[in-house]
Every structure is written in structure tokens, then in C-alpha cells.
């Protein structure tokens, strides 16, 4: 009778497939019969028998295993729910924590998916490119611009790689139909536009769209706005181009451009209507956006290399470079387009994903902690199972299953949470996301994947630990979780470190924000109404006196304190020049705005030297200008009053300084103030009218202004805004991100605290006997509370030490983005640390209070 393993590989197969409960018996049977056959028929026959038997038996064994596992499943589910109910505090904390993590992941997923999907809905979107020109403006100064007007149609002729090309000129034009007059986004396009971009038609035939010069294609939204329930087909709208209204016939209706399209418009007209003859002129200084569709995106690099020889040689002065930018990359990585505004950055997606993962990790840590800790109450159950023959494998399976089950319960809770927070999130992210989980498989699969992953990862450590308890000790009630104490400690420290980190970052962002807004913009923008006069300008001769009349009429009203006009808007880019500075011997930026004499007063700018443009005194000076502080400082101008600009620059400028104003931030504080000045406008081609109202009943003032406007400029749409809001716009994206980090830190703290809560409960339970004995020996409530606190507060303090350097580094790099920034002082760090400790102590104390007040006899009685 041989005792050695008959066929190790076959036996290995057996071991894997057979129900572990009877594994030993089966293997024994195999061995027994094998040895019998060896005796009777020899080793070779025996070996082949063994293999044959294993082969036939494998399938039934596997099948049986599955059935048995399923049988246990019913038990596992029952026990799992029983356990959840028994320890409902821990279960709730776990579910809430995981649900929060999952909710964050859900929101992030939809956000990132939307970001990545921008502009991809076009047919063969990856082959669409925009051409831009890079011009050299001076030494080291570059400007990106659109392309020349006639270039577009030539491209498919010259380059075989280009399948088609289309030009786009986007403008905000007045659109009129009957009594409706508004400013709308109108795009002048080539007919080939529809070959490149996929904007599906609601009504109309593709061939006929814009076939005639006077056709217009409108979006569904515009159809409703201007035609209501009427059928717009064939009807007319008037569009104001160059101060003249032209009639256009509606030849088609497209579906509104989706929210994930960078290209947004209301009306599409033939580009020839916008430019006329100029469209075929080269080098007339005008530019527009040109798009191409390539045969294949791989040709883009090669094509770009060809440009200097072809385009530049024939059509453009040398020194300008043509570049191609992929449309689908634009939303996340693009920086310039002649027709789009860059809206988003890759970083946003990364940051959000990072935060979600962080929150989920913290929740998983908590889960591990709590599960392992609370397992002490199940020690008897585990012991019984082992006695009844459960293998370690089965126990691991059971606890893993419980974790995954809990994870799916958290998924349900997480979905609810995500729905609740969706509106807030949409506002912050400036999107209109819908949580449609079933629109495509990816969403549902990712969700389930995340849940499974969370359940498995979070449950792995507890499953292994719990199943490792030896039976006898379990019955004795001696569950030694202490060996894992180090791990627990690390978890607590890291959770609080993450929370403290987020709090510090939030704190500094707040400080920076209030510094920025409190810094004083150098203006008084409240109650200043801004009226746009752009449309009025088109025919300057006609409107010259009219604008002055308007200004005077408005100024008459009591509620109007002062009225002023300027050529450039306050927050938009002024006439920007880069002359050579005599002092620094290199080109430097210089901005200029043309205004009227009331500008300084109306906007509340502060004169620190000299005087303003009052009508009387500026008579003796031909070209008075008022400069800002930065100009004085940057160019080291001493006693600036009376000096001429041309003293400081190589180029000849008109301008005698009569006054200096305090710097005002017309763009956000991310940028330094640029040296600039305002000069008295000789014409009246103001694009903006600023009206300072006295604050009472602003609405009434607006109505008065509107009345005057309509009387004097009936063909111009009345559009107004508020200056303080315009300025706030600059800071919107900052505010947005501040809010997000703020929410993230609230989450993190919440989860860290709930984790701490659970652990405190566990500690109290674990040490209940000790606490009772101490009470009996005379400990006060305070003693008990500080006993429990001591265990954890040290950890929180430790967390601070870890969080501070990380936070310091991060805050430093964030502040780099601001030209005007605060100094990261120690106050926020200390405050955050103290806050964290306080929160921890409160949580712990509240929990241990109960134990401290309990009757010691109770816990000492049950042995």
C-alpha cells in the first residue's frame, strides 16, 4: 500500500473543484481505490483510472460546489441582515460613509464624462481642426488670431488631406421680428459648415439650407422665441448687420446645439452677408475662424508642416505661423479659438476625481476599522461555525459577501444622495447634468464596478482578520484585536490628516477671497448701471449728437448722480499696446481707454494726484490724460503732472498727464494691473454708458433710462447690466472652486468623525469592564472621559503634523496663480488643528459620556 500521492496534478484539480466540506473524504476515497487497483492491476492501470475518474467527476463536483455555495448564500444573507440590525449604529455609519464616497464618485463620473464628450457628437469629430495664426507683435510678444478671410475655401484645393473647410464668424447682432428685438448669437457660415459639423435638422432639407444668400437657419429655441407656436418656415426675420436691418427667410430649423458643444448659436446665415466684397480680399486686417475636416486625424502633423511653404508663401507675410488645433481636444486643453471661449481645463476633472477617490478611501478606512472592531460581538458565531466544520475559506467568503452586500446597500443610499446634491453640484460645475444611469452600459457598469470594488477592497482586510480568530479563544471571549491596533491608529491619523489638510486649504482660500474683494478694487461699482451702446455705433455720423443728447437727458433725472461714456468696457480688454519703454529698453504693455470727462466721477475712481477732466480746466491742454499708479511706478515717473507720455516711450504718443488715479482692478486679481491711462475722447463713439444711480429704487431709474433710450435710439436693443456684477464675474470661477473644496472638507470631516465615533463606541465596549472597575474604585465622570480621549487625541495631534506641510505646499502653489496674494501665515494652520482636536474631543466625549454615567454593576455582572 503506497502512501505517497498517486497523481499530484490530478489531486490538485480535485482539491480545487470539490466541496471543501467533504474534500478530505473524497480524496481519501480516491486514494483507497487507487491503492486497491495498484495491487490488482498495477500502477499504470491505476494511474489511468485515477485520471479518468477525476475527469468524469470534475463537472459534477463543480456543479455541486455551486449548489452548496448557493445554499450557504441564504444563510449568509440572513445572518448578514441580522447582524446589520443588531449593530445598527455601526451599520448606519458604514453605509452613510460609503454612500457619501459613492455619491462623490457618481457625480464625478458624470462630470468627467460630460467634459470628455464635448464636441464629439459631430460625425468624425476627431478629424475636425481649427486653423489659427500666430503673429509676432514684438520681441517675445505673440498674439493668436483667426485666419484671413479668403483662405478657407482655398484649403481643400491646395491640400488633398483636407476633405472640406468652412469659415465661421460669430457675432452678437440685433435680431428683429415684429415687436421682438433682441441681441442674438448669429454665426455667418459657409455652406460647407454642415458637411463638417453635425447639427441635425428639425425641419428643412439639407441641400436647400442657405442655398440663397438671404436664407437663415434658426435653432428650435429661437423659433419659439420669435415665432411662438407659428411655423417659421419661409417667414422673415431681420438681422442688423452694419447698422442696417436685412431681411432673411427661414430656410431650416436645427435642433439646439447640445450643452456639450463649444459652438453655440441661435442663427446661421451666409457669411457673404456679413462681409460682402471683403470676403475675397487678402490682407485687409480682418480675420475669422476657419475649420477643416481632414481625411484622417493622423495627417494633421504633416499638414501643419506643409503650411510655411504653401500658405505663407502665397498668402501671408512671413513671420506668421499657422497652427492646427483639434476640435475634440479644445474643451479641455485649448487656449485660443477665433470662435470659442475656452471654458474648462483638464485639471478640473483631475481634481474632482482626486477628491472623490479621497473621500471614498476615507470611507473604506472607516469601514475596515468599524467592521473589525465590531466583530468581537460575533466571536461566538464564528466559533460555532468553525466547530461545525467551516473552513477559513468559507468564513472569508462569508464576510466578504457581507461587505459587498453592505456596499450595494450603500450604492442605493449613494444614488439617493447624489440625486439630492445634483442641483447644487450643477450650479457649481456650471453644467446641466442628468444622472441617467441606463443611457449606456458604461454608466451602469462603472457604478456596479465601483460598488463591487469598494465592497471587496473594504471588506478584504476585515474578512481575513476575522476569519483568523482561533475557535477556542473565541469562546473564551478573548478577542485580541490589539495586534491590529497599529493599523487602526494609522487609519485614524490619515483620515484626520486628510480632513485637516482640506480645512486648511479651504481656510486660506477664504482668506484670499476676502483679501481680494476687500482690497478695494479702486472703484465704487455699486449702483452703476452699464448700458451697451455697441449697436448704436455702427453709423457714427447718424448717432454722434444722439449719444450726447442721450447722456444729457439721462443726467437730468434726480436719481441719476452721474453719467459717463467710454469706448472700452471696464472689464474687457482695452486698446492694448506694447511700445518700447525708454527706461527699460524693451517692450511693455500699455493700455488705453477713451472716455468722457465724467468717467472718473461716475466710476468712483480715486484721484491721488492732479485733477480730473472737468470741462473748464482742460481747455488749455490739448491732450489731457489721466494715468494709473502702476504706470507711474513701472516707469519711474517723478512729478508726473504736466509731463508728456512721449517722454517715456520710443514711439510718439499724444498725452499730457494731468492726474493720477489709484490702481483699479478691471480684471481679476489673478493678474497684475497693467500700466494704463484714459484720455478724453474727441468723438462720441462710446460703446458703454455708465450711469451712477443714487441707490433708491434702481428699477425706476432703469425704466427711465430705458424710456429715453427707446425714444432716442429706437433701432437699438436696450441691454443693460450692473457694474458690480460684471466685476464679480471675474471671480466666479474662483468662487466656484472654493465652494467645491469647502464641500469636500465638510465631507471629509464628517466621515472622519463618524469613523471616530464608531471607534469610540468600540473602545468603550471593549473596555467596559475596565471602566466599571475604575468607577468602582472612585473614578469620576471626567476621569473616564479623559481616559478614552487620551487614546485618540494624540492621534489627531499627530495628524496635524502630517497635514501641515502638505497643506503649506499646496496653498503655496495655489496662491502662485494670483498676482496679489496673502501670506500664508500660521493662524489658519493653528486654527485648523485646534478645530480638529476640538471636534474629536467632542465626539469622543459625547460617546464616552454614556459609559461614564452607566451603572458599573451592570457590566461587571455579566461574566
Amino acid at each position: 500500500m503506497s502512501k505517497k500521492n498517486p497523481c499530484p496534478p490530478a489531486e490538485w484539480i480535485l482539491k480545487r473543484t470539490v466541496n471543501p466540506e467533504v474534500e478530505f473524504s473524497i480524496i481519501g476515497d480516491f486514494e483507497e481505490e487507487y491503492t486497491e487497483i495498484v495491487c490488482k492491476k498495477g500502477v499504470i492501470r491505476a494511474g489511468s483510472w485515477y485520471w479518468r475518474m477525476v475527469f468524469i467527476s470534475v463537472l459534477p463536483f463543480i456543479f455541486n460546489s455551486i449548489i452548496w455555495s448557493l445554499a450557504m448564500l441564504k444563510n449568509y444573507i440572513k445572518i448578514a441582515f441580522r447582524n446589520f440590525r443588531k449593530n445598527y449604529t455601526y451599520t448606519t455609519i458604514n453605509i452613510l460613509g460609503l454612500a457619501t464616497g459613492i455619491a462623490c464618485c457618481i457625480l464625478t463620473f458624470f462630470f468627467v464624462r460630460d467634459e470628455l464628450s464635448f464636441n464629439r457628437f459631430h460625425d468624425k469629430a476627431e478629424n475636425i481642426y481649427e486653423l489659427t495664426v500666430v503673429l509676432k507683435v514684438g520681441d517675445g510678444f505673440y498674439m493668436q488670431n483667426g485666419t484671413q478671410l479668403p483662405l478657407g475655401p482655398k484649403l481643400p484645393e491646395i491640400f488633398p488631406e483636407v476633405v472640406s473647410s468652412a469659415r465661421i464668424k460669430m457675432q452678437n447682432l440685433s435680431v428683429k421680428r415684429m415687436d421682438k428685438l433682441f441681441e442674438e448669437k448669429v454665426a455667418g457660415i459657409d455652406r460647407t459648415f454642415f458637411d463638417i459639423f453635425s447639427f441635425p435638422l428639425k425641419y428643412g432639407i439639407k441641400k436647400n439650407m442657405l442655398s440663397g444668400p438671404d436664407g437663415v437657419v434658426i435653432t428650435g429655441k429661437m423659433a419659439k422665441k420669435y415665432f411662438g407656436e407659428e411655423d417659421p418656415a419661409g417667414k422673415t426675420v431681420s438681422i442688423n448687420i452694419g447698422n442696417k436691418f436685412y431681411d432673411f427667410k427661414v430656410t431650416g430649423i436645427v435642433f439646439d446645439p447640445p450643452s456639450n458643444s463649444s459652438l453655440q448659436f441661435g442663427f446661421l446665415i451666409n457669411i457673404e452677408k456679413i462681409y460682402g466684397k471683403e470676403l475675397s480680399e487678402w490682407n485687409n486686417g480682418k480675420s475669422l475662424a476657419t475649420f477643416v475636416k481632414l481625411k484622417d486625424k493622423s495627417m494633421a502633423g504633416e499638414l501643419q508642416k506643409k503650411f510655411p511653404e504653401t500658405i505663407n508663401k502665397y498668402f501671408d507675410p512671413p513671420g506668421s505661423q499657422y497652427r492646427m488645433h483639434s476640435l475634440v481636444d479644445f474643451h479641455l486643453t485649448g487656449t485660443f479659438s477665433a470662435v470659442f471661449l475656452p471654458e474648462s481645463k483638464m485639471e478640473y476633472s483631475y481634481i474632482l476625481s482626486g477628491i472623490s477617490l479621497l473621500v471614498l478611501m476615507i470611507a473604506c478606512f472607516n469601514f475596515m476599522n468599524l467592521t473589525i472592531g465590531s466583530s468581537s460581538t460575533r466571536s461566538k458565531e464564528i466559533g460555532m461555525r468553525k466547530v461545525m466544520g467551516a473552513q477559513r475559506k468559507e468564513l472569508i467568503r462569508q464576510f466578504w459577501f457581507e461587505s459587498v452586500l453592505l456596499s450595494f446597500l450603500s450604492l442605493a443610499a449613494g444614488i439617493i444622495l447624489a440625486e439630492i446634491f445634483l442641483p447644487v453640484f450643477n450650479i457649481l460645475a456650471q453644467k446641466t447634468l442628468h444622472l441617467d444611469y441606463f443611457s449606456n452600459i458604461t454608466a451602469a457598469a462603472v457604478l456596479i464596478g465601483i460598488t463591487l470594488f469598494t465592497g471587496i477592497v473594504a471588506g478584504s482586510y476585515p474578512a481575513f482578520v476575522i476569519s483568523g480568530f482561533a475557535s477556542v479563544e473565541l469562546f473564551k471571549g478573548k478577542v485580541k484585536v490589539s495586534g491590529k491596533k497599529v493599523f487602526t491608529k494609522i487609519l485614524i491619523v490619515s483620515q484626520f490628516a486628510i480632513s485637516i489638510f482640506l480645512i486648511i486649504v479651504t481656510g486660506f482660500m477664504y482668506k484670499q477671497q476676502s483679501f481680494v474683494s476687500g482690497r478695494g478694487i479702486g472703484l465704487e461699482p455699486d449702483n452703476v448701471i452699464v448700458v451697451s451702446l455697441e449697436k448704436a455705433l455702427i453709423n457714427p455720423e447718424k448717432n454722434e449728437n444722439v449719444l450726447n443728447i442721450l447722456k444729457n437727458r439721462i443726467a437730468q433725472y434726480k436719481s441719476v448722480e452721474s453719467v459717463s461714456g467710454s469706448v472700452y468696457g471696464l472689464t474687457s480688454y482695452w486698446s492694448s499696446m506694447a511700445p518700447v519703454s525708454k527706461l527699460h529698453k524693451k517692450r511693455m504693455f500699455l493700455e488705453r481707454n477713451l472716455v468722457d470727462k465724467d468717467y472718473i466721477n461716475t466710476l468712483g475712481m480715486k484721484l491721488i494726484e492732479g485733477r480730473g477732466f472737468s470741462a473748464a480746466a482742460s481747455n488749455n491742454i490739448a491732450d489731457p490724460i489721466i494715468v494709473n499708479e502702476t504706470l507711474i511706478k513701472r516707469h519711474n515717473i517723478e512729478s508726473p503732472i504736466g509731463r508728456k507720455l512721449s517722454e517715456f516711450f520710443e514711439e510718439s504718443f499724444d498725452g499730457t498727464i494731468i492726474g493720477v488715479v489709484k490702481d483699479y482692478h478691471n480684471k481679476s486679481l489673478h493678474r497684475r494691473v497693467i500700466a494704463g491711462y484714459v484720455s478724453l475722447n474727441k468723438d462720441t463713439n462710446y460703446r458703454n454708458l455708465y450711469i451712477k444711480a443714487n441707490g433708491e429704487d434702481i428699477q425706476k431709474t432703469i425704466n427711465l433710462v430705458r424710456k429715453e433710450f427707446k425714444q432716442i435710439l429706437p433701432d437699438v436693443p436696450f441691454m443693460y447690466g450692473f457694474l458690480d456684477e460684471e466685476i464679480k464675474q471675474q471671480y466666479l470661477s474662483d468662487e466656484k472652486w472654493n465652494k467645491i473644496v469647502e464641500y469636500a472638507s465638510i465631507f471629509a470631516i464628517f466621515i472622519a468623525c463618524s469613523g471616530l465615533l464608531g471607534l469610540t463606541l468600540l473602545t468603550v465596549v471593549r473596555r467596559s469592564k475596565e471602566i466599571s472597575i475604575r468607577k468602582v474604585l472612585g473614578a469620576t465622570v471626567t476621569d473616564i472621559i479623559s481616559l478614552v480621549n487620551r487614546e485618540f487625541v494624540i492621534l489627531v495631534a499627530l495628524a496635524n503634523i502630517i497635514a501641515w506641510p502638505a497643506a503649506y505646499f499646496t496653498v503655496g502653489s495655489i496662491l502662485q496663480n494670483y498676482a496679489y496674494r496673502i501670506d500664508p501665515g500660521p493662524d489658519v494652520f493653528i486654527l485648523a488643528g485646534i478645530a480638529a482636536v476640538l471636534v474629536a474631543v467632542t465626539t469622543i466625549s459625547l460617546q464616552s459620556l454614556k459609559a461614564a454615567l452607566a451603572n458599573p454593576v451592570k457590566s461587571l455582572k455579566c461574566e
Partner: protein
Amino acid sequence: MKDLTMSESMLLLAIFRLGENAYGVKIRQKVAEVTDRTYSYGTLYSSLDQLVKKRYVQKTIGDPTPERGGRSKIYYRLSAEGVEALQNAYELQKAIWNGISDIAVEKGRVL
């Protein structure tokens, strides 16, 4: 109580015949001996498990034996319900075959 299937009765009777010594190898051999049908271990254990589930049979774990490399055997014994089921099956068979056992069944012809 449901009727026993053919294979169930085969196994149960084999267990009955083996008495105290009914474990995997022996059951398999006994069935092959009596009915010429060979069970693979896979189907054998599956069927045995089914019988346990139906409570006709009880499993007990025996002592480890040296021949099997120190592994124990699992012994199967008929339970009271198992015995009852067998009795019912026997009655049923008797009723079905009552009076027919004397008649010779020739090929193609039943007299």
C-alpha cells in the same frame, strides 16, 4: 412523501447492505457489484448529498485512518425516514409487479 427514483433506491439499498461500513469507496463498489452500474465519484457524492438533503441519509465523520493518509472517512447511514422511504418503494414495486413475476418475458412478446 415522494417516491424514490431508481438511482436513489440503488444508493439507499447499497448503504443498507453495507451497514456500518458505508462510505464512498464501498458504496460505489457495492452498487457496481449489485447492479453493474458504475458511478463516478462526482455523481456519487452529488447524489449522496441530495439524499442527505432529503433526510433519508445521515452523514457522520469517522476517525482518521492510516491507509488514507491520515484522512477520515464520511460514513452514511439510513435515517428513519430513509428506511420508511425504502419500505414504501418496496411496497410500490411489489404492487406494480404483483403477479407478473411468474410470467416469462420473451423477446418481443409478453405473455
